[in-house]
């Protein structure tokens, strides 16, 4: 049970474990190293299978395709470090996209105004869900599940305000908007990647170099102890959902620009990739541990996987959920095994271990 997994006493005397699994829960640095190894491995395998894979041009395009996952997962990392989860971000991508399209095409907003409005709306959506989670004590999963319904529903309704039929998508954006997703600096480096790197740096500094970031970690490990340290853990937790909402909005803007059309259901299938990227990046699903860098690396690994498998092994893109899913399941099971003293631990010993240590 969720409550139980938070019990800080869970593995005080973490007796010597099977060596092979320790890396699953120990140091972020060695975990990142493993991700880099995975990354290199992908290059070797895919490169050997099909030399086209190594073309910089193609590689950079592949990253463009996964940009939404990469951006959003950076900030969903914040949410998951607090011990929560955010499955509404995918719906916010579509909401952002359609708001931009409708306000620009039908309401006469300038494209800049449209984008700003979209960001504000997404932040407000994040704030609303975050409020329910942090201040009303509802599980993050349920609220963001409801949020994913609500916000995708609102996106659909917004799309009906347009003169364009929703399945067609709104296109013909001005060039200055298309630049965001399609311009390549020097004809090589997509502007998207530059934006991503800026966001990466911001996320990194925010999480690892500021007092705010520290509070996020502390709230994730033990919200009660954080409160006893004078940290307003509710506010901190709520703020992470606002950040992930804004990230979803930025991803939505870039994706809309990249595709050249605004649709209400953009990004609806991103949830699993985002969660996988965050979990694979070393963030504990129970909170308290994680790194922006790890998430960035793992989202790259997933991006390459989604690009390389079809290119080099002719595997249809529809099958790519299998490797990603296996990755997620393997990591999550491996982690739980590593953090439990023995696999066969009965519920009984789980429950009374806490008392045992107190006595």
């Amino acid at each position, binding site marked *: 049970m969720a409550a139980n997994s938070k019990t800080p006493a869970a593995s005080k005397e973490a007796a010597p474990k099977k060596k092979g699994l320790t890396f699953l829960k120990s140091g972020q640095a060695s975990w990142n190293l493993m991700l880099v190894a995975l990354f290199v491995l992908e290059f070797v395998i895919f490169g050997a299978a099909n030399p086209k894979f190594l073309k910089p041009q193609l590689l950079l395009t592949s990253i463009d395709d996964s940009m939404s996952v990469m951006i959003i997962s950076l900030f969903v990392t914040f949410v998951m470090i607090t011990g929560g989860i955010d499955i509404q971000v995918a719906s916010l991508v579509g909401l952002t996209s359609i708001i931009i399209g409708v306000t620009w095409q039908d309401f006469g907003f300038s494209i800049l105004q449209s984008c700003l409005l979209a960001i504000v709306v997404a932040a407000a959506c994040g704030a609303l869900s975050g409020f329910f989670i942090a201040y*009303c004590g509802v599980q993050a*999963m349920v609220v963001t599940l409801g949020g994913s319904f609500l916000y995708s529903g609102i996106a659909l*309704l917004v799309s009906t305000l347009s003169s364009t039929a929703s399945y067609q998508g709104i296109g013909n954006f001005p060039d200055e908007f298309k630049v965001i997703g399609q311009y390549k600096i020097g004809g090589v480096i997509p502007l998207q990647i530059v934006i991503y790197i800026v966001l990466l740096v911001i996320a990194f500094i925010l999480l690892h170099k500021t007092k705010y970031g520290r509070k996020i970690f502390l709230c994730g490990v033990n919200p009660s102890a954080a409160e006893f340290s004078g940290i307003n853990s509710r506010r901190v937790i709520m703020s992470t959902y606002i950040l992930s909402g804004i990230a979803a909005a930025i991803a939505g803007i870039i994706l809309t620009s990249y595709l050249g059309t605004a649709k209400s259901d953009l990004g609806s299938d991103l949830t699993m990739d985002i969660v996988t990227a965050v979990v694979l990046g070393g963030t504990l699903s129970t909170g308290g541990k994680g790194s922006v860098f790890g998430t960035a690396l793992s989202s790259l690994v997933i991006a390459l996987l989604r690009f390389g498998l079809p290119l080099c092994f002719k595997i*249809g893109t*529809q*099958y790519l959920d299998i490797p990603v899913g296996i990755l997620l399941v393997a990591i999550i*099971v491996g982690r739980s095994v590593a953090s439990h003293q023995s696999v066969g631990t009965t519920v009984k010993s789980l429950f009374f271990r806490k008392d045992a240590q107190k006595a």
Partner: protein
Amino acid sequence: MKALKKLLHARELSSVLFLIALFLVVGLINPSFLNSSNVSACFNTSVVYTLVAVGMAFTLFIGEIDVSVGANLGIVATVVGSMLRDGAPVPTAILVGILIGAAIGLINGWGVAIMHAPSLIYTLGVCGILRGLMYLYTNGAWVENLPKDFKDFSAVTAVGDLTVYYCAAVVLTIVIWILTTKTRHGRYFIAVGDNANGAQLVGIPATRVKVIAYVICGVLSAVAGIIFTSRIGFVTADSGDGYEMKAIAACVLGGISLVGGVGSVIGAAVGAVIMASISYLLVFMGFSSNYDNAITGIILIVIVVVDALIQHRSVVKNYHARLLARVSPDQAVAGATEKGVE
């Protein structure tokens, strides 16, 4: 009298009242709604949701969740559909479908109960794998040309305009309800979710109960997949997408708490009817079905937030009550204090 009182206290009742009110309001706005065929249609369309929601209810009872039910439904629909298309006998196909569902349930139960993986993320991963396997199996093609008898059976009615499928689902739900509320072992699901610690003290095998809950969930999703195939008549590559969301929403609407230990499968079934009816009803109210998701989301959020606030209040109230009970009302003790402290 006692039974009536019990009924009034039941959380499911408010869901039933909500459903009736919903029908009446729609009827007031558009009187043409209130006839047997329309109301029955609401129930009939809910049959797949009902089965998935009842299955989901088991995982929620024990305080966990299963978001792979939609993919489970989809893959079973695909396999059963293609077997029937290729001329396999119906019982064989059904048996295979149910076995697949049970296997998926077992995999989920293993990961969550025995390996202690967090259920949401674990089943999300399983969901992805199943989706991929489904594509692998069909190559993305639709499963079509199902036997006509199999498709037509979905329209056969049993009671009034209610289909055999829906009636069977209702009977199944009631049987499960009786088993989970009236039998000794059936109550274990709720008990484990309600107070796992206390369950231990009265000798309930919690791990086994959790695995069984997942298997039941898997089997019911599989049955839902079979009925889905029969009703729709073909299986697309994304069949079952989003059913997990609808099922969770149905359970919450039916009064099942997501922290475990609260609710009944009847509630899940009623919630499923509400969920399935919303888009149908919107049409009668003059709205487009575009409102479907937004309204579902609002209902879901409002219900869980209100529920959480009520729960929180009662917890705090009990905590304070027991603290107050500890304080001696004896003023003599307080008097002694003043003497002791200068």
